[in-house]
């Protein structure tokens, strides 16, 4: 029997690693993967509390989050490919302005 607080702590650690990835990496794809990691930490918390309160709605929300993440990845990677076509790089420091 694992206390709920262990799951909350694990989720917080995973979320922090994701946030750090967004802050210290410059590769746009890695930043994207860090965002996925943060979404995943949130999902883990949803499922934990769904189990803790015996409310299945939490699992349905996770289903929606997964669907939205899939849509986000499709558009985001298309954007990265478009940026790469114009700049020949996916370093986010090189796309710090929006001039065409």
């Amino acid at each position, binding site marked *: 029997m694992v206390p709920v607080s262990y*799951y909350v702590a694990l989720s917080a650690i995973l979320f922090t*690693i994701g946030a750090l990835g967004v802050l210290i990496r410059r590769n746009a794809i890695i930043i994207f993967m860090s965002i996925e990691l943060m979404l995943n930490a949130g999902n883990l918390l949803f499922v934990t509390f769904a189990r803790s309160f015996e409310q299945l709605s939490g*699992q349905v929300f996770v289903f929606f989050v*997964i669907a939205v993440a899939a*849509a986000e990845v499709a558009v985001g990677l298309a954007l990265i490919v478009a940026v790469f076509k114009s700049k020949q790089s996916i370093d986010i420091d090189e796309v710090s302005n929006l001039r065409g």
Partner: protein
Amino acid sequence: MSTDVILFLGLAAVAIGAALGMLFSRNAVYSALFLILNFATVAVFYLLLGAPFIAMAQVTVYAGAIMVLFLFVIMLLGAEELRKRGKLGWQQPLALLLGFVLVAETAYLVFVRGDLVSQIVPAAADYGTPKDIGILLFDNYMLPFQVVAVLLLVAMIGAIVLTKDDRKIERKTSEEKA
């Protein structure tokens, strides 16, 4: 320590190790593979928490479809590693410090202030079956479900429009003019 706690700690170590590997790998392909390992571990957590449907969705959608898309784009762009550039100056220590503060604060809230003393007891056999999820999804959450379908359609159209080659369109329109 009961076997449950030992199992949890082992899996948590793998999940955190994979996340750190994702964060610190120089090569983006390794990062993606570490992230797949992390997603698979989290799927096992979902199984432990009585969410088999979400666990399978996690493996097929996240570790399967989404990460294959990531690997595909990394290899398509040949962007495994960025060209070497100067280090991030003061941002990096600041980010690490803020991350540490976030973890410390959460630990304080969870373990000192929080009243999350309840334990995850073994789930009842009929908790979280895919059938129950389906009934809930198509009963209470029918409208969000439809909206998600539209969202996925819009995302698909958006991705196609964004990656479409502009020159081809221009050639086509000039041909039509001629």
